């Protein structure tokens, strides 16, 4: 399309920031988290404490309750009751922790999500370029989801398991220093094993993701391209492509699965090695009398409580890294300063009358990737444009793709600010006009009929939220579209489907026109449609346009030269400059760029 949509938005800032700095930045933006998290972590640690109670009870009962063949039942019962109470307290603390965590984290994250959404809308078109949209959606969806998952699972695991591992090793050291040291000595081995598997798993899962993408694309081709496949009889080739893609996914998935399965096996084995070491050393110590049999048995339980969390933490650390990266991306979007900013309370309002426009030596450059709008250094899309449009004038803007006409329209509606020079509207610097007033008085109808899921009424009412049904109908009538509306099964309340998909392209344009009409703007900027709607609809649209533009200042980006013929004045853009300016007849006589455009158009439509 135009240069605007192919320019990548500058990233906010380099992302060499450390994890802690990101978390600090994130917490400062979400005070709910800062207030709520310390308490939750405290409760989580309390919950962990309960987990080591049972092994201690085992040790106590074996050593004191069952020692020497005599069973001290009253001691066993006392011990059991104490442990039971601890189990109940632990359970209550665990429950409380989950409750708090969910409430605190999710409230904060929903707030962050909404704030990021708002902020993205406040950024200029430069940041909202077409290729960026998927990325921007990810900022308010998967990135935030990742933080949520981290808070609810991995983050919790990290805290609980760190606590559990620390507590288990502390208890071990208290029960027996040498046995505890034996366990600690084996920790590096376990960590090495985890690292080794994780790095392999990462590679394997990356490949799975790639293969899934390839498989889905191939599936989509088969489904969407069914008519072509059928009509050209290429089932055999398609089967081969599918087989290759589906098998590719299967083989990558089982490869990752095999690594993951071996990982579990290795984890199992590593904890057995720790148990065996404890058993050997423990038995020797017990025979020596420097430790008790109960301690050795308790260690068998404690080792489980220690090794398991170490393994889980390995996984959780990975997840934590992803979550922090996601958080950083969201924060980075929030850190981008809106480059086309609303003057807000300091601004002025536009008068309620048709407005004129003045461009004074306006230059516009799109930023290259990595640049902010003010640093933009690309070749100018507009070069020193100076012109004036009178109130109530109808101006058509023509030019080839990339000539600068769309950029001109965007500057006119303050979707962008000029790199140099000044745009005035109604005698005021456009940068001083409050957005409320500007959006109220200046309306742009984009080329694609962009609709939202909902009814026709919902969509038209966006032009003026307080409009009643009668006014909506009147708006269609004024455009000569009441018969069209009447033919719809549910009239105004006909659902338009996802992105207006239930309506034809032409019909979507009719709805956007009604939306512009009801907004009753003083300056109307139209980006005309070229899509192949059928002739009858085209006539209908052009009639509607004519009606809509009466008595207003109108700037139309004309793709059909019939529109230029109907305008008071035609501006011809070429290479970012206005190269011709005058009425259709004058320009036709002049020839030049306009003459060339007209000739090529005429050849195509004349019978």
């Amino acid at each position, binding site marked *: 399309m135009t240069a605007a949509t192919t320019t990548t938005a500058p990233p906010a800032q380099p992302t060499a920031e450390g994890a802690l700095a990101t978390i600090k930045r994130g917490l400062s933006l979400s005070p709910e988290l800062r207030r709520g998290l310390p308490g939750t972590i405290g409760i989580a640690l309390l919950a962990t404490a309960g987990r080591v109670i*049972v092994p201690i*009870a*085992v040790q106590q009962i*074996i050593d004191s309750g*069952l020692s020497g063949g005599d*069973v001290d039942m009253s001691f066993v019962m006392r011990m*059991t009751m104490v442990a*039971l109470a601890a*189990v*109940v307290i632990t359970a209550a603390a*665990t*429950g409380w922790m*989950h*409750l708090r965590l969910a409430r605190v984290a999710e409230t904060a994250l929903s707030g962050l*999500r909404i704030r990021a*959404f*708002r902020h993205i809308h406040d950024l200029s078109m430069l940041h909202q370029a077409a290729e960026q*949209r998927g990325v*921007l959606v990810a900022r308010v969806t998967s990135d935030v989801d990742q933080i949520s998952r981290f808070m*609810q699972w991995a983050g919790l695991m990290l805290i609980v398991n760190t606590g559990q591992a620390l507590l288990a090793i502390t208890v071990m050291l208290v029960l027996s220093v040498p046995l505890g040291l034996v366990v600690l000595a084996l920790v590096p081995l376990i960590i090495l094993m985890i690292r080794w598997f994780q790095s392999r798993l990462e590679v394997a899962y990356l490949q799975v993701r790639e293969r899934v993408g390839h498989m889905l*694309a191939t599936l*989509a081709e088969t*489904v969407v391209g*069914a*008519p*072509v496949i059928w*009509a*050209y*009889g290429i089932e055999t080739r398609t089967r081969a492509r599918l087989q290759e893609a*589906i098998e590719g996914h*299967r083989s990558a998935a089982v490869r990752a*699965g*095999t690594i*993951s*399965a071996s990982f579990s*096996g290795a984890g199992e*084995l590593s904890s*057995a*090695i720790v148990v*065996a070491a404890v058993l050997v050393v423990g038995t020797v110590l017990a025979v020596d009398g420097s430790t008790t049999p109960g301690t050795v*048995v308790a260690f068998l339980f404690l080792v489980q409580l220690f090794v398991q969390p170490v393994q889980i933490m390995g996984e959780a650390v990975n997840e934590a890294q992803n979550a922090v990266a996601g958080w950083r991306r969201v924060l980075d979007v929030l850190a981008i300063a809106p480059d086309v900013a609303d003057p807000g309370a300091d601004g002025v309002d536009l008068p309620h009358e048709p407005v004129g426009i003045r461009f004074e030596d306006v230059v516009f450059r799109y930023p290259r990737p990595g640049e902010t709008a003010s640093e933009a250094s690309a070749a100018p899309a507009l070069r020193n444009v100076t012109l004036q449009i009178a109130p109530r004038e109808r101006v058509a803007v023509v030019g080839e793709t990339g000539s600068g006409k769309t950029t001109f329209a965007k500057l006119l*509606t303050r979707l962008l600010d000029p790199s140099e020079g000044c745009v005035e509207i109604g005698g005021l610097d456009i940068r001083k006009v409050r*957005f409320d007033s500007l*959006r109220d008085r200046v*309306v742009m109808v984009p080329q694609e009929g962009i609709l*939202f899921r909902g009814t026709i009424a919902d969509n038209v009412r966006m*032009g003026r939220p307080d409009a009643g049904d009668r006014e909506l109908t009147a708006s269609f009538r004024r455009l000569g579209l009441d018969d069209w509306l009447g033919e719809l*099964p*549910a009239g105004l309340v006909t*659902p338009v489907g996802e*992105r207006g998909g*239930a309506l*034809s392209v032409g019909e979507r344009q009719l709805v956007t026109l009604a939306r512009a009409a009801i907004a009753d703007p003083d300056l109307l900027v139209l980006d005309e449609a070229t899509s192949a709607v059928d*002739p009858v609809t085209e*006539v209908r649209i052009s009639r509607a346009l004519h009606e809509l533009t009466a008595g207003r200042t109108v700037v139309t980006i004309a793709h059909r030269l019939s529109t230029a*013929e109907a305008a008071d004045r035609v501006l011809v853009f070429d290479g970012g400059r206005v190269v011709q300016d005058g009425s259709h007849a004058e320009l036709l006589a002049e020839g030049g760029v306009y003459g060339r455009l007209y000739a*090529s158009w005429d*050849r*195509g*439509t004349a019978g």
Partner: protein
Amino acid sequence: MTTEAETARPTDDVALLGRGGDLIARQLRRAPREFAVGGFGTLLYAAMTIVSSFVVGWITDSVLLPGVEAGEIGTATLAGAAAAVVGVAAARAAGITLRRVGAYYAQYRLQYRDRIEVTDRYLDLPIEWHRRHPTGQLLSNANEDVEAASFVAAPLPMAFGVVVMLLITAILLMLTDPFLALIGFSVGPALVLANYVFQRKMRAVAAKAQRLRAEVAEIAHESFDAALVVKTLGREDAEVGRFGARSDALRDRMVEVGRLRAAFDPLIEALPNVGILAVLAVGAWRVDQGAVTPGTLITFAYLFRLVALPVRVFGWLLGELPRSVVGMDRVEGVLGEDGGVRYGGRTPATEGGAEADADAVGYLYAETEYADLSGANRQRPAAGNGYERRGIDSITLSVDSGKTVALVGPTGSGKSTFAHLLVRLFDPDKGEVSLDGHGLVDLDRVALTDAVSIVFQETFLFNDTVYNNITLGETFDESEVISAATLAQANEFIAQLDDGYATVVGERGATLSGGQRQRIALARALVRNPRLLVLDDATSAVDPAVENAILAGLRHLDTTVVIVAYRRSSITLADEVIYIDYGRVIDRGPHAVLYDSLPAYRDLIDAYEQEQEPA
């Protein structure tokens, strides 16, 4: 997708378990080798889990306690004990690995088989069937449904192992001591039940959260895509309100997830601990009575810990079942579709333009096409609003060999449908379409696709090179490809692409303009040198001047051409115009004649001309 899981009542559960049984039986049959490996692994795992707790008990009774009492211990005994621990653990680890490897291989084998079979069926089913099913549904059938049906494979080997483990444990408990057995029999089922209820509730909430997540993403997509409108109409606050409402609803569901965790996590964690404590208390009493040894007590306390965690697998399995059953039903639904397309063995002539005839042909679209219009019945007498009306009523016409014929009519008049019937994208409800006098249904499949080519209104390009998009994998001389592209007015721009004909066009040809894509699609048809070429508004995005050049070039071919067109310039290039409306042929004749004699035709053609004059 998971509504069944959410609304299921206990009576449905019985039915579900029945269907779950069917599902498991089906999947076991479809990946027997993989499941055998998993089954072997899980048995090894179950056996070694139980053995390991006996090893601990044996060490307590025979190594540790006697050693302490005797004040000395033999190195051999100690080494034996260590070897026993490591050896059993190694066997158990092997069991776990095999069990999981088997489960993964089974799961992905099942996905592989179902995907291949489902897509095979897609390729067999006629376009008419494809039309009745939205793209999204077919995709999710081949992807998510297949995946869901295979999920059951993941917990299955483990569940089998746990059943074995529990059975052995139960028997051992009963043989050892009825009181300890009683503890096992109360804690075990309670744990299974708690897991099951948790998974059920969790799945329902998770499904809701997933739906909300999709809605949040959808609003974000829609809103950012429409950023221009949001900005120019100053709709930011309204959009934030809309997005915020969904985001907060998602938050509420996630808090509910937290609440469920808060209720069940502690319970599931506490139950085994309570069991162990009970074993200790009761066991100590039984030791006091001399009924069991301390080693036995340790064995069972240890066993409780080992068995408690795997019991969760039942919750997992039961939780996955509803979704898997739904997935299987959908997959089976597709596999059970009957294609109903039969081909004959006849072959038409191989030279010269084909003669195409239609005899009282009628075709009505199925109702389901209108699903997106909220069920409203939209009968549209007026032309030109982009609504497809319901197919064609009755068309009889013949196109002579080598002629170029234009099908003209308002939107929804049946032109495209007729064009599709001409190349047998689907069969008419009544009447017959024939080629060189042979009914299309009597023709050989390959012979038919060799003889006719259609170029669609909506271009479809594969994610492949330009060259392969033209040849579609068939063998052509490079010169043939270039001359077809030249005729389609595509050679010039293709040559200017970065890699020329070797340029990969990207998904759905996104890197090319609409007109360029249409020209590649046209070259694809032309390189096959068809005897009947059908262009279904195939040049709508091409510049008018280029379109005329293309059509003028086609006239030199020895091919019958049927084009569906709007532009006057392209219509006038045809030998004859057939005006269609209301699914019938209204009239036919040369453009000039029809223009004079048929007001409806004149109006349609003039509508485009009117565009050129200020309204």
